[in-house]
């Protein structure tokens, strides 16, 4: 179980959110919503360990992540805004590199599988520079299957994807959760994620006085998002 407790995040000199907590059980998904700039991406980078929280803590099965950062990195697959596609390498080489970095022994099989799953098989010998934005995006999300991990951190992964691409990604997410994987997803569109918890990061923006803002509809009690709801 992956838990964040009373997190606060500072970017530059601006407090982005405070008092944010969440919990993710195996097979659960967390959808992060909220207006632009409310800290969805920062929260994902915080979960990945790329950012350190100003306050609060993250833990995996009760063990603080700050104590064992190397183990935590091994559990994560992160898809950010940037595609990390090298223009000089072919589609296959791009993907094979990340697969081999994660697990040199199974790289070949996983690369082939990921290419097929995201419909990139026909493009596999095409250099990255000739890909369209949507194709680059497909390649970026294909990394999730080429270099598998327990926890998927997805930052608006559907940007630029066509309907077919979104359907393939959604199918991959369902299979990942069925296998006990977890997903944290920042999005603006309504993603079809059955039984996902939703967390509005914007609700945790600090008020003018520096106190966390509470949403009256929730009775003010947003400290812990429901865990693994309705799977």
């Amino acid at each position, binding site marked *: 179980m992956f838990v964040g407790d009373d997190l606060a995040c500072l970017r530059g000199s601006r407090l982005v959110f405070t008092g944010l907590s969440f919990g993710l059980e195996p097979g659960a998904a967390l959808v992060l919503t909220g207006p632009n700039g409310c800290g969805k991406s920062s929260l994902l980078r915080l979960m990945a360990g*790329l950012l350190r929280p100003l306050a609060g803590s993250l833990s995996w099965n009760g063990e603080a992540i700050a104590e064992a950062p190397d183990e935590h990195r091994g559990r994560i697959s992160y898809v*950010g*805004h*940037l*595609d*990390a596609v090298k223009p000089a390498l072919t589609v296959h080489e791009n993907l094979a590199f990340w697969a*081999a970095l994660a697990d040199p022994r199974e790289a070949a099989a996983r690369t082939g599988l990921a290419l097929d799953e995201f419909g990139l098989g026909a493009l596999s010998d095409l250099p990255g520079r000739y890909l369209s934005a949507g194709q680059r995006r497909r390649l970026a999300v294909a*990394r999730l299957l080429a270099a598998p991990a327990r926890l998927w951190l997805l930052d608006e992964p559907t940007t630029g994807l066509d309907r077919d691409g979104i359907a393939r990604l959604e199918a991959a997410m369902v299979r990942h959760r069925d296998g006990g994987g977890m997903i944290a997803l920042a999005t603006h569109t309504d993603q079809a994620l059955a039984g996902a918890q939703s967390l509005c990061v914007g609700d945790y923006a600090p008020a003018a006085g520096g106190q966390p803002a509470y949403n009256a509809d929730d009775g003010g009690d947003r400290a812990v998002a429901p865990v693994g709801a309705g799977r």
Partner: protein
Amino acid sequence: MRRFGGLVWRDMRLALRAGTDATTAVMFFVVTVALFPLGVGPEPDILARIAAGVIWVAALLASLLSLERLLAGDYEDGGLDLLALGPLPLEAVVLAKVAAHWLVTGLPLIVAAPVLALLLNMPTAGFGVLMATLALGTPSLSLIGAIGAALTLGSRRGGVLLAVLTLPLLVPVLIFAVAAIEAALTGLPARPHLLLLGATLAVALSLTPVAAAAAMRQALE
């Protein structure tokens, strides 16, 4: 280890396919050195005296020129995030990238050096030591430069800043290398200077990955 090798191989392929990164460093090296006989004049004695210094300063600038892109490409396309989250520690990532950089840019410099030494009328007695200093010195240049490359991540005009930050740190390498060649040319033993160069490389090899990785973590925050 296979992961490390995989990263070295990928970076080499990237550099060789893009072509420009790898060849510009060597071309810069050759062209800069070739300018000296034109600027200083064709007196063989003067050229022979300044040959060691000219070749080394040009080699130093040539490696700096290519170091700017050492980490910037991966930083800009998000690859550095993924490498930081990957199973290789960032220290190993730095070492792998430096190894690839040296194989693609440092090694050609060593190969080109004797030809340029001939051009500058350096006595043949110095050739062996010149190659030895470059073999020991250019890895240090790549390593120390990696700290600068990591520190300047995300800054505009990073190349100039990189040069200003890194050049003072590279002065010892330059001094030991040129002293070794001068010693060989005057018939003195070059060994002590080469040992000092080796020591610099050993220190750089052990300290720079740590320093550069710390700077990269800062840049990724």
